[in-house]
């Protein structure tokens, strides 16, 4: 399998942010049935090695494409856009305010061991993420070369993803202290 194939090509999918997830899932399973090392247990060493590489690539591609934020990152990076070097201070003040408020809310809920509030905050963050994903989808549909705007949205999404992970681990710790 050529390593320079794009993830979309690998799954025989059109290059587009809007992706048919059930198609992606079923193609993933078909590809792994063809490439996974378990299917090459009795092959020559070269072929077993090849199978590990191919199955690894399929897994990486699938991990990237199935997650809308990672998919957007991938599409930006494929065009040479460097997300990591974008200045964070380019974020809108309203967004930063919202982040601070959420952080405070989480901290307070944590110190009061208020799992209910944390759960609520968690689903609120997921709502926000869905909205951002929708607007990323819109931006790609309008003009896929609008890197700056898309990049900004992706960075926003990354903030929320980290925040959600944070909330989850706090809840896990609180629940385990019962």
């Amino acid at each position, binding site marked *: *399998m*050529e390593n320079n194939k794009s993830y979309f090509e690998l*799954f*025989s999918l059109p290059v587009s942010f809007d992706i048919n997830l059930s*198609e992606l*899932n*079923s*193609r993933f*399973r*078909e*590809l*792994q*049935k*063809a*490439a*996974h*090392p*378990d*299917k090459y*247990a*009795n*092959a*020559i*060493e*070269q*072929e077993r090695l*090849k*199978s*590990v*590489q*191919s*199955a*690894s*690539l399929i*897994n*990486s591609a*699938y*991990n990237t494409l199935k997650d809308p934020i990672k998919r957007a990152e991938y599409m930006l990076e494929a065009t040479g856009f460097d997300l990591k070097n974008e200045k964070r201070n380019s974020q809108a003040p309203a967004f930063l305010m919202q982040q601070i408020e959420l952080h405070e809310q989480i901290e307070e809920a944590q110190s009061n061991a208020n799992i209910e509030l944390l759960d609520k905050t968690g689903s609120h963050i997921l709502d926000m993420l869905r909205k951002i994903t929708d607007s990323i989808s819109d931006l790609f549909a309008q003009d896929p070369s609008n890197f700056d705007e898309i990049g900004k949205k992706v960075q926003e999404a990354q903030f929320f993803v980290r925040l959600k992970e944070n909330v*989850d681990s706090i*809840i*896990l710790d609180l*629940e*385990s202290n*019962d």
Partner: protein
Amino acid sequence: MALLQISEPGQSTAPHEHKLAVGIDLGTTNSLVASVRSGFAETLPDSTGDHLLPSVVRFISANETIVGREAYDAASIDPLNTIVSVKRFMGRGIEDVSRLGRHLPYHFEKSESGMPLIKTVAGKKSPVEISSQILKVLRNRAENTLGGDIVGAVITVPAYFDDAQRQATKDAATLAGINVFRLLNEPTAAAIAYGLDDTTEDGDIVVFDLGGGTFDVSILRLTKGVFEVLATAGDTALGGDDMDLAIVDWLMEKASLDADTADRASMRQLTQQARQVKETLTEQTSVSIHLNLNSGVSWKGILDRETLNQIILPLVKKTLRPCRQALRDAGISKENIQQVVMVGGSTRVPFVREKIGEFFNREPLVDIDPDRVVAVGAAIQADILAGNKPDDEMLLLDVIPLSLGLETMGGLVEKIIPRNTTIPIARAQEFTTYKDGQTAMAIHVVQGEREIIDDCRSLARFELRGIPPMVAGAARIQVSFQVDADGLLSVSALEKISGVSSRIEVKPSYGLTENEIEKMLISSFDHATEDVQLRKLREQQVEADREILALESALADDADELLSEEENFKINEVLKKLKSLRESDDAEALRRGIDEVEAVCAFYVERRMNGNIANALSGHKVEEFK
């Protein structure tokens, strides 16, 4: 009367083609071996009819070792030379082990690499060697029962085992002369054994596996014959042994015994009694206890199930955090769960079943003997990997249980592959130098979830040298991680500007080196060099046979389609050469012959893989035009 068995068309190959393969459950408390015979997977008993082999090894002298029931019975009288629950020490450093063991009777010593060695009458023994003794017994049992050499084995490991623990398990198999097809996670094996395969309705399954010394919980999704592990979590130091210890504490309190003054033999007696008490209370609601220790202490009393439940409550509660974490990582809620499968002897404890049933709001599945279910599943997978079921559609997609990362400046960890990533997986990350003119870089690979290096498990350290001097931050060092389908990691590093590279198989900080394994293999052959030479030759011959068979079957498949006449000729030339070398007794030349075949066939396997991948998607392409 035995009925004649007729296999389903395409499901089983003719008897003469059937390769002998086994599944091995190398457990903390008991180990088992199973195989598929006449289409049925079953565990194999020893000559006395016992299926369970207690994972206990007793060293009697330099040349005499016993394994199993007899060794278990000697644990009280010869505690120093009788190693129980050795699985707890696999892939662990001596510091970890001393943390495990307030009740451990052994004399430990640190090896050069920090591995705990146990001093016995037969010398210092590593956990890997001790485990290989158990595996040897199971291998012999299988070969005697099945009547031939086994071509390979699937060996199960707790899903939550880290790289070091997995590597140690594989090394033990190598030492026991077993070809490992695959290390398979125990819960995945259990799910296979429950026949949760392509005939089952699609859905999410929880496998709750509480063994003697380890606990893990996995969430699997089944879709059209593909088992996808969504998340796994657990605790490699939690199990039935801890329940026994909790009961020991209770007994000691009742009998006014002091842990500091109790002798080792009494402790061992107490532990055995505690286990019996626990087992009796799975059937009965109370048990009367009569302690009569070697030390002269005696005590009589009653323990009822209600009190036992209170004693073990903290341990049962400890299993819930991993359950919650696995649900979160899988991104599903309890309502999505269709089945809860119970695995491991400790799930016999009624209180465990009750609490877990309550937590998931589902009656757990307990139909298959929880002690045997893992070995049975491993046998089914081994049968498939041996090539005995060429048309089987089943596929397992497992995950790594713990994140893999590298140490960066300030003792912090940069995660390279997060936990619950589907394997095999490869990932690369670039790093740069910290100082002007820096020519070497220490690379420290760790596994774990914390951001601070000291809270993670150290897997390996290596150095990339010969980086050309540049200003700080100019070098571009790419570190690549490759995790194979067994969950084993190899790491390589490359300085991209100069091309300086370094590759290591991650030999865990507490593991054995290739050389050490080689040495142990040699010493097990009575120090006779002829034997060593002969063994090397046999190994190469087995390898060559494998190679020839695999290549011939590939060529028969698609040589016409994929190879030009010239290419076909070239491959057949090296194949012919290898076949003639196979008849000689030159191990070195045979090795070179195999290498040559591998090199010549590189382009061919590439084409085969591309073809297989294109075929896999061809059905979908047609659909798109509908």
